[in-house]
Structure formats: structure tokens, C-alpha cells
């Protein structure tokens, strides 16, 4: 870290300590002189493990689907039809209502050129928004932070509801903050000995680029952010009912953050368990139900509190699965997949584009029709109102779902 930047930050941290909490939002406002445009929020939901998109949004009128998946295809009577081509996995029943209300959009065949079938590499590609042969060490949301003047003062501009922070949230200069439980985080920062270490951290001796500098910098940022997040979010209690799952609880926390007026633009939440090489029907079904029930509760909660129009929810997975099932009633790593978008102000709700072709394949895998970075570009440019070329590797035209 640059010395000057460090001094600026420590100054902020120590002012924050002395300033009454209720003044904190004004402090950020006054220091910057500009306010965030509107109150729009983006919630990114990551399904980890490579969710099988074909059994999620089922091409139930395509014979090839049933030929390739003798034992794991979702049978026609069970499919929840969306149109005459595609329908939802029955475990996604809770989403049908959102779909019918015009709050959901399905973007088909999203991927990237020369797809990588490794979980880690493909997840890195989705999180960094790189090309398949390009290795980036910063995430797309992290670079959104880097590009945003406001972010230097508010690391909580992006929050991951988790105990650890994903690569997507890490920028070159700034990173988001991981908060599973705002109260718990706040309490740990109140330790007088730690406060003493931070407040009297006067010289820049530790704010070097090495790991010790990294630790001190993290400590300072955590201190000031935890204070703000805890004090702001405790002003609101979620009254809606959510399912009793860890994932639902995380979305409930996001609702608390959004409704309390936290100055946060992007929330990031993950749900794992989608690596279904064996016995896919049960495993994926269970996870899809956890996902759909929680999202439905969340969307309805936001609708009731009047925040749905200001919120956009995007769900992705690092890849889809092979078209043909394997011998263990599972599916192996594949390529293109569907992306879901939810919100109260979708320009194009419903099925956004054609279902993926099951005949025009790339050695057994679906061909992508939409680059995932066009989805990101849409979110960045049309929703968060920033220039996407400054954040993505080049300019992407974007899509029309908002």
C-alpha cells in the first residue's frame, strides 16, 4: 500500500472510532461529495460444484434429452412447464410463482470460449471474468471496488455473507468484507487491546506490501466496517418467514442488510453440493429445493418491504454438466449453463433466449450462446451504472434483460 493511502485510511479508522455511530453515514457522504446513484442492490448467488442446468431447466419436449438420460431425466409429468420447450425441475416449484409474476428471467446457454472443465479453474474464470487462457488474480467485483472512488472509504460496499471471502470479491487495492454474523464480528473488534494496536498504529512501518502489512490493513478495515455494519443493520428486524436452512438464513441476513439501508451495493452468497458424479437425482434435487425455497422467501420478503424493484439477483454455476449421463446415475463436468435473474424491474422476464441445442454439440457438451461477461456487463452498466470496460477485460455489449 502507498504510504499516503495508508495515512488516509488510518485517519479514517481513528475518526470512525471517535465519532458517534449515527453520524457515520454522513461522514462518508460528506467526505466524498457524491452520493451513490439510487439504492440499487445486486445479490450474486453462486451454486458451487457445477450445477446440471439440463435437469434444472428441463428441455422436456426434446427426445434427445430423454435418450441421453435414461435414468436421470426429469419425466414429463413432473416438469413444471415454463413454455412449450422448457420447464423447471419439480424441486424448483417455489420459483414458479416468481416466474409467473414476471420477476424471473432464464438466460440459456451461458458460457465462454474454450471452456475449462476443472471446478477450480472454471470458477476462477467466472469469478475473475477472465478469458479461458488468461490468469487474473483479482475478481470482477474486486475490480468494481478498485474502480469506485467511494469504495476506498467503504470496504463494505460489497459484502460476502460467509466467513471467508471469495476471489470474486478481491481487487488489486481493495477487497470486500466477509460477514456471516454482524454481531459476532463487531464484538471481536471491540477488544481494547486490538483497538489500542490500531489507534496507535501511527507509522507506516507495517503497511508494506508484505504479509504483515496485509494483516494490519485487514485489521484496520475490519474495525471500521464492522462498527458500521453492526450499528446500521441492527435497526431492522426481518419479519418474513424463511426456511430453516443455512442458505436461507444467509439470504435473510441480506434482507436485513438491504432493508436497514446499508450502504452496500453488492452481496455475494454461495450454495455448494452440486458436484453430482453419482446418484444425481437425490443430491441435486435436495440442493435445488434448498435454493428455490430460500430464493422464493427472499424475493417475496423484498416485495413486501418495497425493495424488490431496487434489487437484482443473479444466480450462476461454474459450468453445467455433460448432456449424456454417466454409468453412476450422475453427470460429469460440462460447459454452458443457464443463469437466473430475479428482480422487480426486469425488462425481459421469462425465457430470455432459446434453449441450448442438444444436437449441435462440442464433443458431447453444450455450445455456449451468451458470454457470461455479457451478463456481468449488463449488471455493471445498466444496474450499477459504471463503465464495464474498466472492470471487465474489454468492453462487452451486454444484454436486454434489464
Amino acid at each position, binding site marked *: 500500500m502507498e504510504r499516503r493511502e495508508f495515512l488516509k485510511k488510518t485517519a479514517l479508522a481513528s475518526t470512525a472510532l471517535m465519532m458517534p455511530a449515527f453520524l457515520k453515514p454522513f461522514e462518508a457522504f460528506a467526505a466524498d461529495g457524491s452520493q451513490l446513484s439510487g439504492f440499487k442492490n445486486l445479490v450474486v448467488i453462486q451454486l458451487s460444484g457445477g450445477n446440471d442446468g439440463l435437469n434444472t431447466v428441463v428441455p422436456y419436449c426434446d427426445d434427445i434429452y430423454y435418450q441421453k438420460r435414461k435414468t436421470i431425466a426429469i419425466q414429463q409429468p413432473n416438469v413444471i412447464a415454463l413454455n412449450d420447450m422448457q420447464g423447471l425441475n419439480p424441486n424448483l416449484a417455489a420459483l414458479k410463482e416468481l416466474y409467473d409474476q414476471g420477476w424471473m428471467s432464464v438466460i440459456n446457454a451461458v458460457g465462454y470460449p474454450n471452456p475449462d472443465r476443472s471446478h477450480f479453474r472454471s470458477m476462477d474464470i467466472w469469478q475473475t471474468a477472465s478469458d479461458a487462457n488468461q490468469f487474473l488474480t483479482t475478481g470482477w467485483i474486486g475490480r468494481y471496488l478498485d474502480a469506485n472512488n467511494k469504495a476506498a472509504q467503504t470496504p463494505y460496499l460489497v459484502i460476502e455473507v460467509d466467513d471467508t471471502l471469495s476471489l470474486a470479491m478481491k481487487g488489486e487495492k481493495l477487497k470486500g468484507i466477509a460477514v456471516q454474523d454482524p454481531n459476532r464480528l463487531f464484538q471481536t473488534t471491540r477488544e481494547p487491546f486490538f483497538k489500542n*494496536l490500531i489507534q496507535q498504529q*501511527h507509522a507506516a512501518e507495517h503497511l508494506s506490501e508484505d504479509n504483515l502489512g496485509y494483516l494490519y490493513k485487514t*485489521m484496520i478495515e475490519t474495525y471500521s466496517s464492522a462498527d458500521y455494519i453492526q450499528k446500521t443493520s441492527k435497526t431492522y428486524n426481518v419479519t418474513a418467514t424463511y426456511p430453516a436452512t443455512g442458505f436461507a438464513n444467509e439470504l435473510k441476513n441480506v434482507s436485513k442488510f438491504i432493508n436497514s439501508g446499508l450502504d452496500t451495493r453488492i452481496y455475494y452468497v454461495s450454495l455448494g453440493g452440486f458436484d453430482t458424479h453419482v446418484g444425481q437425482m437425490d443430491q441435486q434435487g435436495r440442493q435445488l429445493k434448498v435454493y428455490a425455497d430460500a430464493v422464493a422467501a427472499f424475493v417475496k420478503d423484498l416485495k413486501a418491504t418495497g425493495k424488490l424493484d431496487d434489487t437484482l439477483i443473479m444466480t450462476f454455476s461454474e459450468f453445467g454438466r455433460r448432456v449424456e449421463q454417466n454409468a453412476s446415475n450422475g453427470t460429469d463436468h460440462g460447459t454452458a449453463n443457464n443463469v437466473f435473474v430475479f428482480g422487480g424491474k426486469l425488462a425481459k422476464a421469462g425465457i430470455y433466449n432459446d434453449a441450448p441445442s442438444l444436437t449441435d454439440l462440442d464433443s458431447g457438451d453444450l455450445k455456449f450462446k451468451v458470454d457470461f461477461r455479457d451478463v456481468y456487463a449488463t449488471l455493471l452498466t445498466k444496474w450499477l451504472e459504471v463503465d464495464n470496460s474498466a472492470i471487465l477485460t474489454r468492453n462487452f455489449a451486454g444484454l436486454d434483460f434489464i
Partner: protein
Amino acid sequence: MNNSRQIKHLYARAGFGIRFEDLHQHENWSVKKAAKKLFEASVQIQNIKVVTENLDLRYHPNQSEDEKKAIQEERNKQEKALNNTWMQQMSTSDAQLREKMTLFWHNHFACNIGNSYYEQQLNNIERANALGNFKTMLIQVSQAPGMLQFLNNQQNVKNHPNENFARELMELFTMGRGNYTEQDIKESARAFTGWQYDGKTASFVFRPGVHDTGVKTFLGNQANFCGEDIIDIIIKNPVTAKYICTKLYRYLVNDIPDDGHISQMADLFYKNNYEITPLLEFVFTADWFYDDKNIGNLIKSPVEFLVGLNRQFYVNYQNPDVLMQFQRTLGQVLFRPPNVAGWPGGRSWIDSSSLMYRMKIPSTILSAGIIDFNGKPTPEDQAYLAATKRQQFNVIKRTLTVPDWDRFFQKIPLKTPHPEIAQFMLEPTMSARVLDEVNSAPDIKTMLIQVVSTPEYQLC
């Protein structure tokens, strides 16, 4: 010559941190001699044998709900016992280097299956080979029931190959990405068909009936390869030596790779047919290993952090569950890696939440969560401290940890100045800020608890 700084560094990297008794009389040893002693102490192999039954075997279709529940409880007990036994072994064993390397291979061959019997077996394979031959270990690991189950090779059969094992073998265990093609994965998966395990005996079996005997083309070679042939070809490829050495360098030296040093390591490793001991001897006696930039700059993993603390303060856990809770809070539960790539390590251990927990844990273990504080307390501080004091009894009741302070103090030479003791506990050079705290601490215990509650103590 006084080599105390070098010897401290060596113990921090080749083990889980130094204790005063380790340094006693050793500080005049050459680095070479100190390293030799570490290897000698690790000749012994202490297998873990706490899990005595494979509970997978007891799953029968006709079990009642109550029976299933009982088995699940037993499985949970096994998992805790295995976790705790290894934590204790790392904390107390003299075979520090062997345990430290076992932890490395545990992360390298990451496996998460929830079957403690198989996990223990795999862990003992890694321990037995931790300082031996990499190829021998690779074959044993690849044929371990735990790994065969985790990477679905049980389902890899002639007519329907399952590529999971073949892919991870190359991507994560040996060559690293970019050194093979998707076609190589497909072809080698065929070679591993028939590599299965027998659940009853918990041992490897080769089932010729489901093995694909056709000709496979792998990395430019063509023949009717079996699994061992594929491993042979992979081992003969020097990129494998390079890949392993890069990972080891980041574990033992610095998380920013130095190509020159890694090439030296890889050449030696390859020339010595993947023998691990000579490679480690080379690293621990290399001049560059003791360069300033390589000292006190690695972020301890949560397990290294907890083990180091236990070891340095001779902590006794009367409620072992608490150790697992700490692991969970800090993001590294033994035998539960997040995925087959293991824990990514380095800076990824640290974020807003985990750093604060890490700095609070030493005082929780050593003094019921109390960090006495030398500064001028504000009313808020006073309220916080009063609340912590009220909590004291609860913390003690919950953690049930007992450090052996007498033993700790016994080993410190009389009249050692406080700053010297403080610096002994830390690998990075103490900052002026921490030094201030050290000098103003009312007593040595307070000072020690403060020192291990700093960002500096997170580094090794």
C-alpha cells in the same frame, strides 16, 4: 557463532514453532546440525489407530431409523477422535518434521468423505511416506479406498469411464494444469478402470472384468496402459517435479515463488527419483532459505497456528471438541478440506472475520479470554473489560484448556529481558508499537498473552 535466529526459523518452517527448550544449548549449533537433528527426531513413525471400525459396513437396507441414528452418532465420535488425536500428535510429537509434512500431503491429496476409517488409513499412508518417496506415496494414495471413493474411481468402468480421478491426478496431484489435454484425461481414465476397493477389507482390488484393455494414447505414448503405467509416464515428466517443488516452496519458504530456487529444488528432486528427504535437506540448508525476506513472512494456516500455540504453551485440552470448534471458526477442519484442491492457503486464510478470531483465540486458550490492556481505557473499554471478566468463568467452563505455565517458565533462562522473550515468540521483527506494549506490560504473563494476540504472531 549464535545461530538462534536461523534455528528459530528452521523450527518455524520444519515444525510447528520453537520452544525455549528447543533452543536451549542449540543456538550454537550449525544450521546443518540442527536440521540433521530434526530429521533424526522424525525417523519414527507413529501411526494413528484411534478409529477401529469401518462404519460404512454396517449400513444395511433394513436398518431402523434408531439404528441409523446410532451409527451416525458413532461416526461423529470417530471423526472427533481422529481429528483430536492428530492435533495432539502434532502438538506433542518429537517427530515435528514428519507431522508437518504429513499436514502438507494431507492438503496435497485432499480428501473429504466423512468415513474416518478410510481417512485414518490415508493419513497413515501420508505419514509413512511423508519423508520417503513421492512416487511410492502417489501409488499408495491412488489405491487408498478413501481416495478411490472420493474421486469416484469405484464408478470408473470400461463402458462408462468416470474421469474424475484421472483429471485430479494430473491437475492437482502431479503435473498441474497446462501440461496435458482433455484427450489425455479421457485416455488415462480408461487406464484406471478396474482400480477399485473392497469395502469389507478396506483394501485396494483390481477388477479385470471392468478394466479397459484397449490401446490408449497418453502424452504422446501409445500402448495398452494400465494405471501404474500412467503414473510412470507422469513421474518421468519433469513438470511433475517442478509442480510439487513449487507447492513445497510455497509451504516451506515463501508464498511468492522464486523460479531460480524452485528450479534448483526440482532438478534435485527429479535426479533423486522423487526422494523427499534429500530435497528437504537441501531446502533447510540452502543459504536462501535464511534470507530476510523468507523469515516471518508466511501466514500460518489455522492448524499450524493452533498446534504452535498448544506446543509452545503445553496446552492440555480437557474438552477436545473445542479444538475442532476453533478449526471450524478459522476455516480449516482437518479431514474436511473444502474440495479436492485443498485449502488454498496464504492470504486466503485471512479476511475480516478470521483475523479477528485468530487474534482472540490465544487469550481464550491461555487466560479465559482476557487480554489485559496497558493503555488508557475509555468508558467503552471499561465496559468491555468488565463484561469479559464476567464471562471468565463461562469461557473456562467451555474451553477447559490448561496451559502448563510452570513448564513454560522453567525453560526460560533466568533474567531474560521481556523484549527478548517477546521477540522469541514472534518470527517477524517486532514493531515499535508492539515493543511499547511489551515494555509497559505489568508482568510477564500479560506481556506474553499480548504478544500472541498480535498480527505478528499469525506469521511464521
